[in-house]
């Protein structure tokens, strides 16, 4: 199956739109536009009919694999089921068709939702306040680190120019610290996958602005010395940033605020069931402790009990400013809000309970067939790698991942975290049944046998898809990044 480009379906004069007849007097358009900026060549947009558009994008959708298609154990990404009610609620006219600048008096519903969601997320993380402005996890990191920067600078402390990041961190952590003008100090994890306290002690000092930590970490492990870690950094005068991408493991069991962390970002598109959209939109709210509230982005949503009304507070002299136009990915916030109301406190804890149960169950079954570098209780995810025997047959993680596609599954996250060679990071989430997990194990067990007996099956995988493995290196050498009628001769 190959789908033509929408541009290739074009025929001059065909259209898929209709507009009401123009009902106002007109003059020549050239009188209303500056002549020197008049467009000379039309943009090559497709001329197609409505049914062309619908079929084209329907067929494209059929060339995709989503959570609704099947099991999607992509580690660190929390690909849980996205309840349908979420979609309906975000499309309610009062939300989807309301303007960000309409008067506050006309926006009380949206503002209440933002205010309440702030409170719920604060309670879940043990923080004082949460801003919904950041558009994704990485954007939340940027916001959070800037809050920390503002805090130090406001205290006249300009010598803190370093951010400590463990080597197991997600790439966005060091990239964020760099965008905020910090030098990055990478510290090695110990052989058990945890932050090495001695290493941390060595580097924490009066130039430490912050430590960025993911917990449970990217190996799926809860940092056993989390309180000691917090103490070391705080004693050095630094602040603690919590990458909350993995909150799905601990809701209702523990709170980053109670562990001593000062700032956290959430990924609503992971933990709180908002769909990932093939790459976004997400939402990365940031929670802070009380002493950091003055630095939150503008505006915050506040409630006046006198006027019995929500209002936007823009009078925030210490605020880091704005990180995004308007108030964030509001439509995504509606979906997360819906999810939290659906589950309630008990349901959220259950979600974490079963996310962790599913991960430990898979781990228990799969460790008999794959190499398990860290054999201890895990949280929401864990890592396996090919065994020595498989490696001897020339089998890499890539081959196993691609073979899983032939068995109808989305592969796990591969080659991350970087500190485990040939990592396969498996995160089942709580919304998968035992049957699904068993089917997945069966597939992986079969693949482990194929790896030894018929390794070519893995090397050739996937064979069930319409395209096979791509040559990424040559694509990057001669990049073709847009359609042109001349390139696509057919």
């Amino acid at each position, binding site marked *: 199956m190959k789908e033509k480009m929408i541009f290739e379906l074009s025929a001059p004069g065909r259209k*898929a739109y209709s507009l009401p007849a*123009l*009902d106002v007097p007109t*003059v020549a358009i050239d009188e209303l*536009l500056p002549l020197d*900026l*008049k467009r000379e060549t039309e943009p090559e947009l*497709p001329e197609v009919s409505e049914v062309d558009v*619908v079929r084209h*994008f329907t067929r494209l959708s059929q060339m*995709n694999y*989503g*959570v609704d298609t099947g099991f999607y154990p992509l580690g660190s990404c929390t690909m849980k089921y*996205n309840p349908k*009610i979420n979609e309906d609620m975000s499309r309610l006219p*009062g939300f989807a068709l*309301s*303007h*960000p*600048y309409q*008067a506050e008096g*006309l926006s009380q519903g949206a503002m209440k939702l933002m205010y309440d969601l702030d409170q719920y997320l604060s*309670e879940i993380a043990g923080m004082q306040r949460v801003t919904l402005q950041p558009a*994704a996890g990485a954007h939340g990191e940027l916001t959070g680190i*800037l809050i920390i920067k503002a805090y130090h600078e406001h205290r006249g402390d300009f010598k803190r120019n370093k951010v400590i990041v463990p080597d197991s961190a997600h790439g966005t952590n*060091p*990239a964020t610290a*760099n965008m*905020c003008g910090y030098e990055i100090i990478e510290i090695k994890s110990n052989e058990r996958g945890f932050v090495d306290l001695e290493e941390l002690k060595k580097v924490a000092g009066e130039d430490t602005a912050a430590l960025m930590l993911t917990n449970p970490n990217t190996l799926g492990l*809860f940092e056993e010395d989390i*309180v000691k870690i917090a103490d070391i950094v705080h004693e050095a005068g630094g602040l603690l940033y919590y990458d909350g991408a993995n909150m799905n493991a601990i*809701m209702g069991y*523990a*709170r980053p605020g*109670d562990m001593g962390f000062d700032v956290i970002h959430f990924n609503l598109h992971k933990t709180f069931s908002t*769909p990932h959209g*093939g*790459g976004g*939109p997400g939402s990365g709210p940031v929670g802070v402790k009380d002493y950091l509230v003055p630095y939150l982005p503008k505006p915050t949503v506040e409630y006046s009990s006198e006027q019995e009304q929500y209002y936007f507070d823009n009078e925030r002299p210490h605020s880091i400013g704005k990180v995004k136009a*308007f*108030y964030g990915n509001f439509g995504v916030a509606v979906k997360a809000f819906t999810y939290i*109301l*659906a589950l*309630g*406190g008990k349901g959220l804890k*259950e*979600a974490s309970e079963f996310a*962790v149960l599913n991960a430990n*169950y898979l781990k228990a079954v799969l460790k008999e067939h794959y190499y398990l570098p860290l054999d201890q*209780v895990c949280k929401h995810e864990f890592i396996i790698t090919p065994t020595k025997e498989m490696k001897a047959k020339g089998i890499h993680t890539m081959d196993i991942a691609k073979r899983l*596609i032939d068995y109808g599954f989305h592969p796990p996250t591969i080659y991350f975290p970087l500190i485990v060679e040939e990592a396969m990071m498996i995160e089942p989430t709580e*919304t998968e*049944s035992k049957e699904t997990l068993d089917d997945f194990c069966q597939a992986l067990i079969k693949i482990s046998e194929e790896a030894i007996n018929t390794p070519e099956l893995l090397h050739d995988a996937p064979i069930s898809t319409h*395209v*096979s493995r*791509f040559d990424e290196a*040559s694509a*990057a050498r001669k990049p073709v*990044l847009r*359609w042109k009628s001349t390139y696509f001769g057919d």
Partner: protein
Amino acid sequence: MNFVPHTQSEKREMLASIGISSTDELFRDISPEVKLAEELKLFPGLDEMSLRKEITMISQENAHVDEYVSFLGAGAYEHFRPALIDHLLLRSEFYTAYTPYQPEISQGTLQAIFEFQTAVCELTGMDVANASMYDGATALAEAIIMAAGQTRKNKFLISSTIHPEYREVAKTYAWARGMELLEIPYQQGLTDTKELEKMLTTDIGAVVIQNPNFFGGIESLKNIVELAQKNKTMVILCADPMLLGLLEAPGKIGVDIVVGEGQPLGIPISFGGPYLGFIATKEKFIRRMPGRIVGIAQDRKGNEGFILTLQAREQHIRREKASSNICSNQALCALAATIYLSTLGKSGIKEVAEQCIYKAHYAKSVLNDIPGVEIAYPNTKSFKEFVVKTEESIESINKRLLDAGIIGGLDLGEFYPELKNHMLLCVTEARSKIEIDLLKRVWEGEE
């Protein structure tokens, strides 16, 4: 309501396979001093019927543009959205997928993004575009970072006619990296080119302009580009994609980086987000571009298909040396824009833009007839927005309008203290002559 499918007996079987008797044992690694002793202070979960009722009630406390006639724009635009957009966006193979890391099972998302990149290149006249940014404001800020890397300069000129919130976002990003932004003043609702000329010194990395600008005015872009080029300074343009069907492609007149807000292209106003940032540039700057980029690749059998490419710029490979920290973007909004642009096509994008111009122009002439109201920059050409100057306070005008079911324009005094008693109005193709005439009558106090 919960979405956990396990039965009690399945749970027991799973615990037995792990060799434990209760899930509590799976949390033994959380040290007791941080383990939460009580339940979260939330509330019991809701069934779907109650949930729908509860949230619908909250939504009803919000006004929306189907029950009011709105003349608000200022960065969030009400254009008509054909029904097919939502029907296609709700194909859950699209919206429940992650970033397309596995190209063999993600050709749908990848091809759609490739088509989006093509459409953005066509509209902007640039060589390359990425898969999307968070919104117009962050795309603008990232473009400045690109220019800083390219020119190794630290000072940038940003027009005061750029959306105030975009400038604030740029300021935040600039502070983060220690860059300096200087504002170019405006004259007659347009960037003051005389001042610009004076400010263009050799240490300036780029000039940043919005067109049409925040006041709806069309900037003398060619002039600005010439001034910048004379000084060997890069030009970053923030463009409304809707007008690019009629205006010369920025790439053709020497702009270096084009960014913008794609919300007008089929994305609901949704109280300010999620929207769609886009960024496009010349081939030679491609390795400084932030974000995902989709390219063509050959598979082992010689088939052509799509993959994420040039990843060596990105955070998961380059970590602190990456061109940006962006990871997730606004892919589904880019899909919406691609569907919308396919629906409009070559003629549609022009027709919508023309209707906006005619209707806004009509509204201008009608409001100009009201005593005590004048068009603020009468000689400035404009697109779908314009500024009026009033004797009466904007607040009192808007209150009268609201009583008649009309949401008036933006009080510019909120963003520009010198523009007290100035209102920014927006008229798109979604407004009718009847509605514009009603605006006038209510404004005059006739209804």
